[in-house]
């Protein structure tokens, strides 16, 4: 069984590498183009070997080459069912958990911060985070009342504590 799951994981990684390699080659070529077309500051009479685009150009070429090699390497790995397994990852509970963390982080940082005071946004985030992961996304039997008490306590102590320690004691400005 473990051998089988290892093979699946390798297949998924080979296909993920293939996709990433395509992105890297595209990024490398874009960097090469942008570096090549970057102003060469002729009006300032700088030496042509010191143009601002020189190092990015080399890096772009390096990235394209490494991306190309990765593409070749992952293309050669036989991974039957690799694509299905890779896209199957999008429907797993793990992806849902990651999506929820990212979603909560984005709501906190892009929406709540600036709209309400930082300490309130922090408390709301901590409360929602704990409640979601200890009830809805809990893989063990949930204890909603216990989680509610803990979530409230940690939200108040955590959110309030960070505000007090940073802004009041260490005099660090918060968002």
């Amino acid at each position, binding site marked *: 069984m473990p051998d089988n799951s290892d093979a699946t994981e390798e297949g998924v990684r080979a296909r993920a590498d293939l996709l990433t390699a395509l992105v890297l080659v595209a990024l490398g070529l874009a960097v090469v183009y942008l570096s090549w077309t970057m102003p060469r500051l002729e009006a300032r009479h700088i030496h042509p*070997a010191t143009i601002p*685009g020189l*190092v990015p150009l080399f890096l772009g070429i390096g990235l394209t080459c490494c991306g190309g090699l*990765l593409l070749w390497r992952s293309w050669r790995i036989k991974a039957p069912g690799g694509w299905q397994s890779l896209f199957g990852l999008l429907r797993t509970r793990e992806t849902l958990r990651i999506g929820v963390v990212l979603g909560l982080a984005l709501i906190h*940082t892009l929406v709540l911060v600036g709209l309400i005071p930082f300490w309130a946004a922090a408390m709301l985030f901590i409360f929602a985070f704990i409640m979601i992961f200890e009830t809805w996304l809990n893989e063990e039997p949930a204890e909603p009342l216990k989680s509610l008490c803990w979530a409230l306590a940690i939200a108040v102590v955590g959110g309030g504590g960070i505000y007090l320690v*940073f802004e009041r004691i260490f005099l660090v400005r918060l968002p």
Partner: protein
Amino acid sequence: MEGLVLLGQGIVHFLTPWSLFNVAWATLLGVTIGILPGLTATMGVALLVTLTYKMAPDQAILTLMCVYLGAIYGGSRTAILLNIPGTPANAAAALDGHPLAQQGKAGLAMGLATTSSTLGTMVGIFFLAIIAPLLSEAALKFGSYEFFWLALFGVVISGQMTGSDTPLKGYIAGILGLLVAMVGMETLHAHQRFTFGIAALGGGIDLIPAMVGAFGLAEILSTMKRKVTGHVAPVNDRVIPTLREIFQYWRTIIRSGIIGTFIGIIPGVGEDVGSWSSYAAAKRASKHPEEFGKGSQEGLIAAETGDNAVVSAAMIPTLTLALPGSAAAAVLIAAMLIHGVRPGPMLMVENAPFLYQIVAMLLLATIANLIFGLSLTKLFIKVLVVPRERLMAVIYILCVVGSFAITQRMFDVYVMLVFGAVGFLMREMKYPMAPLVLGIVLGDLLDLNLRRGLALTQGDPSPFFTRPISAVICLIIMATILMSIPPVGKRVRGLFGRKGAEQPSSP
């Protein structure tokens, strides 16, 4: 002799109640961070930069150093009791530490890990005090040509040694890091590159928000991906080992300390590689290699001596060449710059006592580790069972604060979010983070010195290849890249007639 006087002064400098108070709380915090799976030393140091922002420079660096060393040590607790490495540096310690705990020797395993961590740090400190001043003096002769190659060497060697899947991924991570460093105003002609009209990008991408994202948010995502429950092994035996139990492996301790020191000196190759390399060498040299992985005390000692020696030794290139010896050392460089301390060859000229203060900091931190490690066993076991859902929510808020506070712009928080998401994806696909970080730190050094060198010679690149030190570093880089090509590497190893050591790849 002058060095000894400066070292004495460095130690006396920190023997004040305020400094000792900082050592105590920062070490405890560091150990706690190390114990908690999902919180790494680099993350702890990156988050703490904000908290130490308003402190005096020496106290701030002292605090960060204690957190760094404490976290690397603390991770061994989790490895032994839960079989989950507290930080990546402790993965090798779990191989023998946990079987020892299962045999009812959890206390002994923790005691051995604590004492070998201290001894590892001591070996590293010894070499730091000896090598750093010499290297610093030698580095004064380095010009643009040598610094260009050193920067490239850092990224290449880090990519080669940390790419667990293939060195190619290490190189890609390094190039991506260097590209990130290209964003913003370049220092030779003050031209803005890759800003696309976004004013906030003009100053470039700051290291701290990037690190908080790559090591903080990415770590939160990795930890929250699935719920991991581990059974904490009971501790019923004594924690303090006898001198015989430790020093019967004195050869392993010295060997692992030297290996850890060597790995620490190599830029961007962190504690995890030091730990695995020491472990593999101890297994090869041991009279009982069959016990390794089944509860070998020698294996545990090798792993823990190796990773802690890296911490001290990582300060050698960090302080003398401004090349970070590990990812956490990169954050330390950023913290030093924030506090007006400029690491590099001029440090010994401008601020020689500081180097010895660093030695004193490491000494105090490791003594604190030893005292807390052998006395607060029960408290640290309680930390182990903190539910991660509750902790990670608070850590995210600290990530936001940590990335915002230095320059006080929301743009840096967005940088943290982007680096967190991208860093998580890269980790999932086995791209190492250390070369990325090294690329960001060394990008400017590499770019500036290449073009400055070419400007000095009116475009003639020959000094890059003909100056003796440049030529040597260039040859090492070439050899490293060639060795990472599988057929070439296999042939070269074949020439030496030795089978490739069966060293487990670092996670």
